[in-house]
C-alpha cells in the first residue's frame, strides 16, 4: 500500500561519523537514529529513499559568498590555528567548531535539500524530506548557531526557478534568521517563523515587528513566543496563522523546517510541545496538498529528535505509528518506556491568552496589508527579461529535461500563474 503522495526521502549514512566536538549539543548521529527508527517502523516501504549528491562549492556559492565557501572547504582542525582572523570573520569557533569532515557534512545536507527541491521542481514527487537539512541560521558570509551552509536558502532558490511564490515555515524553537534575512527584501518568499523570543534567546531576532522591507515588506512573519508554550495554544496559533498565510499568499510550494528543539525536554529549547503537537503542525501543512519540502533543523535531545522525525515521516506518509518502538539498533536510547510518546514538559507556560491574541492580531494585520496592497496581489511580477549571468560550470549540458516533463510544467504553470501579466512584453505579444 502506498500513500497517494509520492514521497522522496533523503539520507546519507556518512552523517553518522560527523562529530562536532565534545559537549557540542549538535549530534548528526541523531540522523542515524532517526533513519533507524524510520526503517524499524518499515516506513521505507512507502517511499523512495535517495542518497543526495554532495553539493559542489559552486552550488553553495549561489547563496553564500565564494570566499566563505572556499574557506569552509579548506579549513581543517589541523590548520585552523593559522587562520584565526578568518575564523573570527566567518564566526567559526565556539558555536560552529571546525571539525574533520565539516565540509563534507555541509555538502551532504545542502545537497539533500537541493536535490529535494529539484525533485519537487521536476514533479518527481509531492513531498521531499531531508532531515539532515534545515540549518536555518547560516548567513551568506558566516556560520551561526551550528549552521554553516544555509541549505534552506539554497533549496528555496532552487524552488524559485519554478515557482512564483515560496512559503517558508519554521517551527524550530530558534528564530529562522538566516532564511528570513536572505529573503527579507523579496515578496517571492514569505518566511513564517514560530520561535522563542526574548531573554536574549538566540539569535535575538524575530520580533513580531520585523516584517520585511521594500518589496518584501510584510513578507516576513515572526511569531515570537515565550517559554513553555504547550500543544494546545501552539497548534491553535499555528493553524490560524498558517491557514491565513496560505489563503493570502497562495504559495506554489511550501518549505517546512521542523526543528525538534521546540519539543519538551530539549537540551536547548524551552517549549512544552509534545511530539504529537509538533507533528500536528506537519499534518496541517500537508493538508494543503501543495508540493512540500520538509527539513529537520535543531533538536538536541537526540532520542526525542529521532522519535519526532520518525513520527513526522509517518504523518507525511499518512501512517500512524504504534507507540511501542520496534526493536532496532538504538533501542536502548528509547528506554525506559521504549515508546514514541515523551513526557510532557513541565516548564511554566508564560504565554498568556492575551499575549498570544495580540501576536496573532498583529500578524493578521500585517497579512491584511498584503491582501489589500494591489501591487503584490496575486498577479505575477512582470518579467524583466533579465538574463542572469550563468556560470557554465553550473550547467550540465548533458542533461536535458525530457519533453514530457517540460510539457507537464508548462501546463501546470498556466494553471497556477495565469493572471494578468500587466507588462509591456505581453501587450506586444497580444
Amino acid at each position, binding site marked *: 500500500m502506498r500513500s497517494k503522495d509520492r514521497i522522496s526521502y533523503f*539520507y546519507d549514512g556518512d552523517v553518522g561519523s560527523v562529530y562536532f566536538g565534545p559537549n557540542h549539543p549538535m549530534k548528526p548521529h541523531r540522523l542515524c537514529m532517526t533513519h533507524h527508527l524510520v526503517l524499524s517502523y518499515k516506513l521505507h516501504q512507502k517511499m523512495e529513499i*535517495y542518497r543526495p549528491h554532495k553539493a559542489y562549492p559552486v552550488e553553495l556559492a549561489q547563496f553564500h559568498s565564494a570566499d566563505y565557501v572556499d574557506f569552509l572547504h579548506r579549513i581543517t582542525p589541523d590548520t585552523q590555528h593559522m587562520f584565526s582572523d578568518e575564523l573570527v570573520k566567518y564566526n567559526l569557533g565556539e558555536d560552529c567548531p571546525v571539525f574533520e569532515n565539516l565540509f563534507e557534512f555541509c555538502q551532504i545536507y545542502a545537497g539533500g535539500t*537541493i536535490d529535494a527541491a529539484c525533485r519537487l521542481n521536476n514533479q518527481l514527487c509531492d513531498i521531499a524530506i531531508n532531515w539532515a537539512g534545515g540549518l536555518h541560521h547560516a548567513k551568506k558570509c558566516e556560520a551561526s548557531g551550528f549552521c554553516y551552509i544555509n541549505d534552506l536558502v539554497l533549496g528555496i532558490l532552487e524552488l524559485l526557478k519554478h515557482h512564483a511564490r515560496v512559503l517558508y515555515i519554521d517551527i524550530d524553537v530558534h528564530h529562522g534568521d538566516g532564511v528570513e534575512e536572505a529573503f527579507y527584501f523579496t515578496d517571492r518568499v514569505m518566511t513564517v517563523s514560530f520561535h522563542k523570543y526574548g531573554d536574549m534567546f538566540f539569535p535575538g*531576532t524575530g520580533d513580531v515587528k520585523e516584517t520585511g522591507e521594500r518589496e518584501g515588506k510584510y513578507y516576513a512573519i515572526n511569531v515570537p513566543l515565550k517559554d513553555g508554550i504547550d500543544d494546545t495554544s501552539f497548534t491553535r496559533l499555528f493553524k490560524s496563522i498558517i491557514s491565513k498565510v496560505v489563503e493570502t499568499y497562495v504559495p506554489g510550494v511550501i518549505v517546512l523546517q521542523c526543528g525538534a528543539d521546540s519539543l519538551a525536554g530539549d537540551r536547548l529549547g524551552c517549549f512544552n510541545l509534545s511530539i504529537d503537537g509538533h507533528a500536528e503542525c506537519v499534518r496541517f501543512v500537508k493538508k494543503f496538498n501543495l508540493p512540500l519540502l520538509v527539513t529537520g533543523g535543531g533538536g538536541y535531545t537526540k532520542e526525542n529528535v529521532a522519535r519526532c522525525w520518525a513520527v513526522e515521516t509517518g504523518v507525511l506518509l499518512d501512517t500512524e505509528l504504534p507507540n*511501542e518502538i520496534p526493536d532496532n539498533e538504538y533501542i*536502548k536510547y528509547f*528506554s*525506559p518506556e521504549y515508546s514514541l510518546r515523551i513526557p510532557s514538559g513541565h516548564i511554566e507556560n508564560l504565554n498568556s491568552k492575551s499575549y498570544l491574541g495580540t501576536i496573532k492580531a498583529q500578524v493578521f494585520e500585517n497579512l491584511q496589508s498584503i491582501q489589500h496592497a494591489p501591487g503584490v496581489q496575486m498577479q505575477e511580477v512582470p*518579467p524583466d527579461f533579465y538574463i542572469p549571468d550563468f556560470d557554465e560550470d553550473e550547467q550540465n549540458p548533458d542533461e536535458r529535461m525530457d519533453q514530457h516533463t517540460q510539457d507537464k510544467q508548462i501546463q501546470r504553470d498556466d494553471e497556477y500563474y495565469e493572471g494578468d501579466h500587466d507588462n509591456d512584453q505581453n501587450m506586444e505579444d497580444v
Partner: protein
Amino acid sequence: MAGWSMLADDGSAVDCDKSPSKKLKPSFCVDLEPDWKVSNKFSEACAESERELDKLRCDFEGFLRGFGKEICTQNTFRPLPLMLGDGQHVDLLKLFLVVREKGGWNAVSENGLWHLVAKESGLFGSNLASPVKLVNIKFLDTLERWSKRAVENKGLDCGLNNSRVSFSGYLMEAHADLRPSLTKAPGEKQEYPHLELLSEEVESNGGEKCDGVEGLSGLNLVGKFGDSKKLCNEGEREAILLDGDENDVVIKEKQVCLDSSESVANVQDGRNLCDNEVNSLVAEQDGGKRCDIDDDDVVILDPGRFCVKRKRESLCGMLSWITGVAKNPCDRAVGSLPECSKWKSHGKEEMWKQVLLAREAIFLKRQVDSSADQWQKAQKMHPCLYDDQLGSTYNFRERLRHGKKLNSEKTTFQAQACSESLSATQSGSDKSPCAEVMKDGVDNELLGNTDLFTENSALDKYVPKGISWKPRSKAEVQEWTGMTSESDTKWLGTRVWPLEKVEQRYLIERDPIGKGRQNSCGCEVPGSIECIRFHSGEKKLRVKRELGSAFYQWKFDEMGEEVKLSWTKEEEQKFKATLKSNPASLQTFFRDQKFFPTKSREDLVSYYFNVFLMERRGYQNRFTPNSIDSDDEELESVLVTNGTGQEAEKSPSSIFYSPKKPHTNLR
C-alpha cells in the same frame, strides 16, 4: 511636489519684492515656520517610545515621497507629511491602514465612513470627513492605483535610491551648517539647546532620519539644478548661505532646498505671477506643509518672528474644488472657463484662476525636474566610487567661507537678491559663486554619502531592531519571469530505495508494518540485556536481508553494537581509559592517530556513538532511569571540569545561551 513649493516661494518672493528693505527672514519664516509645537514634537519624538512609530511612519512617508518623485513626470505629487487646516498632523500611514482595514477607498466612500476613518486615524474634530477623503485622494489613492499597475518596480527602487543618495548629502550639509552657527553668534544662547539637540539628532540618527527627508532632499536637488540652469542667480544663492549662517531662521537641510527653489520661484514671479494673495496663500499653505515635513528635524529658534497666521483652508478649498469638478464636471455651479485671452483679466478670487496658476507653477517644476533627472541618471555609479572626497571637503569649506563673507553684506544683499533674480540670466561662467556652490552641493552629496555609507549605508535604514543587519546577507532573487527557468535535473539524488533491480531477497517478514515491539517474547528474562540484544540482532538480520545493498549504502553495517565486533577487548579498554583520563580532548583524541593507529577517525566516532555511549545509556537505563541524559555525553568530563558545564560560560550571543533553562534533569 516641487510645484507647490515654487508657488510657496513665489509668495515669499513677492513679499520680498514688495518690501525690499525688509529683511529676508520673515519671508523665509513663512516657509519654514511650523507651529511652535514642532519643537515640542521634536523632543517628544526623541522619546524612545515614539521612535519606533516614528520610524515606521517615516518609512512610509519616505516611500510615498520616493514614489511621488518617481511618478512626478506624469503626475503631481504632494509634499509630505501634511497638516489639516486646523494644524493637525495627518499620519498618512495610519490613515492608509485604516482605510484599508475598512475595505479600501470605495468601500469607505460608499458606506460614508470617512468621519470614522478620521477618528481612527487619530484626528480630532468634527467635519473631518471631507478633508480626510481629500487627503486620501491626493496622497494615497495615487499610490494605490499606481501600485495596482505594478509598473517598473525597478524604477521605483532606483528613484528611491537616488533620493536617498541626495539626502545624505543634505544631512551632511545641514550638519556642517549647524556647526558654524553653533560656534558663532554667542548672543543667541538661549536657542542653543535646540540646536545642539538637533545636531546630535542629526549625528546619531543620521541613518534613521534618512527616511523622513529623503524624498524632499531629492527635491532639493531638483531645485538646485533648476536653479543653476535657469538663473545662476548669485544673490539668491548667497542669500541662502547667509541664511544658513544667520541662525535665526531654522537651520537645517531643507532650508537650503527651499531657498533654492525660491530662486526659481522668483523668476516665475518676475515673469508672470503678480497675484500676491493667491500666492501668499499658496505659499503659506505650502509653508505649513513644509514645516510638517521637517517635523522633528526642525527646530524653530525664534517663534516670535513667526509672521501672521494665515488661512490654510484656501488651498484646500481649491483642491476640493478641483476634486468636485473632476467628479462632476457638468455641475452648473462650476461655471465655464472663459477664453484663454481673457484669463489675465480675471482676479485670483476665481477658483479656476488659482488652479491655472498652480498648474503653471507645476509645469515649471517639471522642466526643472527633467534637468535634474539628467544628473540623476549620470549618478548611477555608486557615490562610494567617486574618489573626490578630499576635493569636496575642501570645496565645502570654501563654500562656508563664501557664506561668512556674505553674511557681512547681508542687508544690501537682499535687495539685490530679489532684483537680480528678476533679471538674472545664465552667466555661463562656471566660476561664479553660484556655480561653485552648485558644485559644492553636488560634491557634498557625494561626500556625505560616502561618509554615511560606511556607518549608515542606505540599507541600514532597513535594519530591524536588534539585527546586526548586513545587506550582503540577502540572497539574489531574480524577478519572476512567469516561466520556469532551466532546471538542473542532474541533482535529483541517487535512488537507494526501492532497489533499482530486485535483488535476491528472502522476504520472510510477515509482521505488519510498524507493528511495534512484541510485548511478550520467548526469552528467559524479557527486557534483560540478552533479550534486547537478541531481538536487536534478530531485527538487524531481517533488516539486512530486506534491504539488500541499501543496508550497506546506509552504513547500517557500521552501526549499532555490532561495531564492537571489530574491536578487541584491549582496544575497548584503551578507548575507555583514554576517554576517562582526558575527556575534554575528545576531538583531538578522535583525530590523533597515536592512540589507535589502526583505527580511522570514523571508526572511533562510530565506536563512540554506537558502543561507548550505548553502553553507558544501557547502564543508565538500569541504574539511574530517572536521570538519564544521553546528550550530556561527557558525564565524566562534567565531573572533571568541576561540574560547571560549558553552558554557563557561553556568551549571550551563543545559541548555547538558554536562560531560565534548567540544564540538568532534562527528563
